[in-house]
């Protein structure tokens, strides 16, 4: 066994369920449909699968979706896991699946993901679900939609590099054009830059058409070793040559730079493993949850210099026949074939952990506000047509309540300080590191010798976004409101 995955594992089959609006179909059905197609594409039977990897599903929040799927599909894998790293989940499953085969944990790995966010959840609950993925203490109480955090990165990119709303819109226009060439895509009607700019503001600078759709759908692929692919007589296996990951932060306010992503490091690793670089690429599939993310990823993946992503897109280099700035002819930069179906295609928002958190948070809120009787509302509630198997994770009543922080041992001092009108930061007595948010150990040195000291109470707005579409019913009465990413000065003064 070598220390490098390059070329050791191949994709031998892919499958895609119907995507878009697929009413009456559970995530398990969607996953099974995609899996059947992937197996048929590979020319193998389900009994040959000994490994299953899946993402989570919001609308079917099984603790172990991969196991639930296996049961539904009628297989008993000896390697299984349910992964969740948000928008990186799909790519990560390539890595984990390849590593499992490389390490002898499995011979045939089925990677599958599905969800029914569009018809399995009400729009309010889907939005609330995404918002609940934010930190309960430091983000959720402010009504910060997921789109808002991405919007603040795009806004800062506009400030630093002169990126324009029209350039952002060009991403959506290009992707829609690509989608129109793809059978089964959720949205295929051509759009213009003006269509995007007039589609209604969601959270500045993002308009509706700058944002991913909420979709139903499932996708699957089959991984085997290169030797196995050869033994099966697969004519054109797709070998995995390189993969890389990087996780720099969870909270946006701890993002090292608002205008750079972990793709700088993950792509460096993937390129190094593969022995290729950005100028060798003919086709790229780039995470497109929001248009500004695409522009930053184009830069961070090395397709154009930092800060030039907007111009790169506007000049037509992100499509068939375009060129990158190093004069390499593109055959195509194909973003997600289902424009704006980022959730459906990547299934990145499917998250059992989020579901648990939602119920936990909802439980705390309900108990705090209405006493133990309110717990009954936390049951999963059917809210669609009779026969629909989808369930919401919190009740509409709970979704209408603003989430409040629930101070714990880590954060009690912080919230007590605010009641006294002071913004407290943690100072490490051992290394001097100053940190926000509050926790039990110093993030720099691991020391537990932390003291709380008041910040000056003065700050500078580093980026901001005005929310025009609330993340659920709880914040509807507040829009428009401005969220900001601010730097706060230490100490007094």
């Amino acid at each position: 066994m070598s220390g490098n995955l390059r070329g050791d594992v191949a994709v031998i089959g892919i499958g895609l369920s119907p995507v878009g609006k697929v009413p009456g179909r559970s995530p398990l059905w969607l996953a099974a449909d995609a899996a059947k197609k992937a197996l048929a594409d590979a020319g193998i039977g389900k009994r040959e699968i000994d490994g299953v990897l899946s993402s989570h599903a919001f609308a079917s929040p099984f603790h172990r979706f991969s196991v639930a799927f296996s049961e539904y599909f009628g297989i008993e894998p000896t390697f299984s896991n349910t992964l969740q790293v948000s928008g990186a989940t799909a790519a990560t499953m390539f890595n984990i699946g390849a590593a499992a085969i490389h390490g002898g944990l499995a011979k045939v790995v089925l990677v599958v993901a599905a969800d029914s966010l569009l018809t399995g959840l009400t729009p309010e609950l889907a939005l609330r679900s995404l918002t609940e993925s934010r930190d309960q203490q430091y983000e959720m109480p402010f009504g910060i939609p997921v789109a808002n955090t991405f919007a603040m990165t795009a806004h800062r990119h506009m400030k630093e590099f002169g990126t324009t709303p029209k350039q952002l819109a060009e991403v959506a226009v290009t992707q829609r054009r690509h989608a129109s060439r793809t059978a089964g895509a959720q949205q295929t009607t051509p759009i213009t830059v003006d269509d995007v700019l007039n589609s209604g503001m969601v959270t500045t600078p993002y308009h509706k058409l700058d944002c991913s759709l909420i979709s139903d759908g499932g996708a699957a692929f089959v991984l085997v070793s290169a030797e196995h692919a050869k033994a099966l007589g697969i004519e054109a296996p797709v070998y995995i040559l390189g993969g890389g990951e990087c996780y720099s932060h969870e909270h946006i306010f701890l993002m090292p730079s608002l205008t750079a992503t972990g793709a700088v490091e993950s792509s460096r690793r993937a390129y190094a493993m593969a022995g290729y670089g950005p100028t060798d690429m003919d086709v790229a599939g780039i995470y497109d949850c929001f248009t500004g993310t695409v522009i930053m990823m184009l830069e961070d993946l090395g397709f154009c210099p930092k800060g030039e992503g907007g111009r790169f897109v506007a000049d037509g280099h992100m499509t068939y026949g375009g060129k990158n700035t190093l004069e390499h002819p593109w055959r195509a930069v194909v973003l997600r074939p289902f424009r704006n179906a980022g959730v459906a295609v990547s299934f990145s928002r499917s998250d059992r952990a989020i579901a648990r958190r939602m119920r936990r948070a909802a439980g705390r809120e309900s108990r705090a506000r209405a006493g133990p009787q309110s717990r009954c509302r936390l049951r999963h509630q059917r809210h669609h047509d009779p026969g629909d198997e989808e369930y919401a994770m919190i009740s509409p009543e709970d979704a209408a309540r603003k989430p409040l922080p629930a101070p714990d041992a880590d954060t009690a001092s912080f919230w007590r300080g605010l009641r006294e009108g002071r913004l407290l930061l943690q100072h490490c007595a051992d290394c001097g590191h100053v940190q926000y948010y509050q926790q039990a150990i110093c993030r720099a040195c691991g020391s537990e010798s932390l003291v709380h000291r008041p910040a000056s109470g003065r700050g500078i707005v580093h980026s901001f976004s005005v929310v025009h579409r609330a993340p659920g019913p709880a914040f509807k009465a507040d829009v428009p409101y401005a969220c900001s990413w601010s730097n706060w000065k230490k100490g007094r003064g």
Partner: protein
Amino acid sequence: MISTYTGGSPDDVTFDMKVVLAPEKITDEVTLPRFRKA
């Protein structure tokens, strides 16, 4: 940190704007750290 603006129109917020803490009491237990223009 991330927070929300109070004390004016959201359109007042600009890059590099100087702001100050504006604690907002929500319940007896919870006061949120919002901000306003300095």
